[in-house]
């Protein structure tokens, strides 16, 4: 965490261009530059600036957006729920469906269902999410009109209450499915491989010998198989979020991805840096949660 703050600080300082010139114009006089430097604390030694920066971040102060004139923290907080909704829906989808499909593939090993699932998983894992989004848009939204093309709600037909909720879900379906595909493919493959390995293990043979039904045996094995899979899913948090950003851009989903794109276009550096910090912290938290989940599920691991 501390390393990230220092990295972020270094990026800011290594970036070309003097912020004083950006603020005061190219033709200001030396006294004015000195005033600006003193006002923003840029005349202090670097370690002191770093301490100030860290203290500000710890107080939740990420600076002020150049373009929107509001605090970066509030701008990000406004967009965060939409991204969280998209990401969590996709994660639930990919995990539940991935375990189901992986189990199916393992049960029907080397049969047509397994081969079809395996091929689909290989293709799904290789497909860039933004391209899948574009194709889904062309085929399903523009082509058949089954799904809305853009946004989170229908702007021409604002709804309230339950209808509003349904409207959001209708808009959410396509981006969430598209975002889920990569993880779904990976989870399916991992579950299949894990189950096949488990089927050869002694405890599964013992369970079968006891006369347990096949679904009981699989439930038994899945608990063990899921441990390494949770680690893999957790370690891909960064990849998953970058996929979310791209999918948001394709579907004009009003989350962090849209904010990232608009901040890029308007060169709103404080917002960009704030987002990088928040996302990095999110990734670290995801890793932490993974470790804790691992410890909860595996009685052999205990954190003191």
């Amino acid at each position: 965490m501390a390393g990230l703050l220092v990295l972020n600080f270094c990026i800011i300082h290594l970036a070309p261009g003097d912020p004083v010139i950006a603020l005061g114009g190219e033709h200001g006089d030396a006294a004015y530059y000195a005033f600006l430097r003193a006002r923003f604390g840029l005349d202090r030694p670097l370690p002191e600036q770093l301490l100030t920066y860290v203290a500000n971040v710890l107080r939740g102060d990420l600076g002020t957006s150049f373009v929107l004139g509001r605090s970066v923290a509030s701008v990000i907080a406004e967009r965060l729920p939409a991204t969280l909704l998209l990401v969590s829906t996709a994660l639930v989808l990919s995990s539940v469906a991935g375990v189901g499909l992986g189990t199916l593939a393992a049960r029907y090993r080397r049969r047509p269902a397994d081969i079809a699932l395996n091929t689909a998983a290989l293709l799904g894992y290789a497909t860039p999410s933004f391209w899948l989004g574009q194709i889904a848009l062309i085929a399903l939204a523009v082509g058949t009109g089954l799904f809305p093309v853009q946004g989170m709600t229908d702007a021409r037909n604002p709804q309230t209450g339950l209808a509003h909720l349904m409207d959001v879900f209708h808009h959410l379906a396509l981006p969430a499915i598209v975002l889920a595909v990569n993880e779904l493919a990976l989870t399916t493959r991992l579950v299949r491989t894990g189950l096949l390995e488990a089927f050869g293990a002694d405890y599964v043979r013992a369970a079968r010998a006891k006369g347990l039904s096949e679904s009981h045996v699989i439930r038994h094995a899945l608990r063990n198989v899921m441990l390494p899979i949770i680690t893999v899913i957790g370690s891909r948090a960064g990849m998953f979020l970058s996929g979310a950003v791209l999918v948001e851009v394709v579907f004009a989903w009003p989350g962090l991805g849209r904010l990232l794109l608009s901040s890029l276009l308007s060169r709103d550096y404080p917002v960009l840096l704030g987002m990088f910090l928040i996302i990095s912290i999110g990734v670290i938290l995801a890793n932490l949660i993974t470790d804790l989940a691992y410890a909860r599920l595996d009685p052999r691991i205990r954190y003191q």
Partner: protein
Amino acid sequence: MLALGPRVSESRKRLFRLLHNGAGRIGVVLTSGLLAVALLAGWIAPADPFVSVGPPLRSPTLAHPMGTDDLGRDVLSGVVYGTRTSLLLAVVVSLLTGAIGIIVGSLAAWQGRRTDDALMRVTEFVQAVPRFFLAVIVIALFGPGLDRLILLLGLTSWPWIARVVRAEVLSLKQREFVEAARSLGAGHLRILFRQVLPNALPPVVVVVSLSAASVILIEAGLSFLGLGDPDVVSLGYLANNAQRFLRVAWWMAAFPGAAIALAVLGLNLLGDGLNDVLSPRGGH
């Protein structure tokens, strides 16, 4: 001096086995096909990807098998040159990450506990940094360019490789043939480079090919956000351009994305196949 370890020059036999492995065969065919496209881009592409050669937004025809874009540029030429950019990036970044990963991994395993601990902390830190977003920030602040993208991805993609190298070297350095080389009076560097590293390479090759696939995906994503190098055509740039014309020109989106998917699929399958062939367990 005698090479004491298991012979590494089995490469021909291994290639043979790779070609007889389902995933490996498709991976080899796809990857070498795309490499050929990249190397022969100048001959394959019908036109300069930046030059307008026909009417704008024309759907695929014989003259323009993948159609034309909003400025009348040939999409096929864009895809061919874009593939070259993606693969060039993947190869250079792989060389860089391979080098860093091998150096860090073998130092960590070869030197004492302290070096190991320190290097592994660094590795964990770099692994925790979200590469894609770091690239977004750096390009936004420093401006786009293939050179800095290579440097950035090279400097952030090595932890996985370093971990694999470390694990391999740790297990190899206890083996008898290393003992034998040591007793023959071979120096540290000689043992490391002649005996240990060649035997540690197979799993590294697998990881490198998988990481090359992720590099291609990251570059495509960055270019899709408009952060690619404006002086070279890339597949992500074409997809970005297609976004505004999704309703009218499906071909602008379909073909560049398919090329990315094929490249990634090829490298993933190659990695899977190599894993089956090279790992001791996968020998059927």
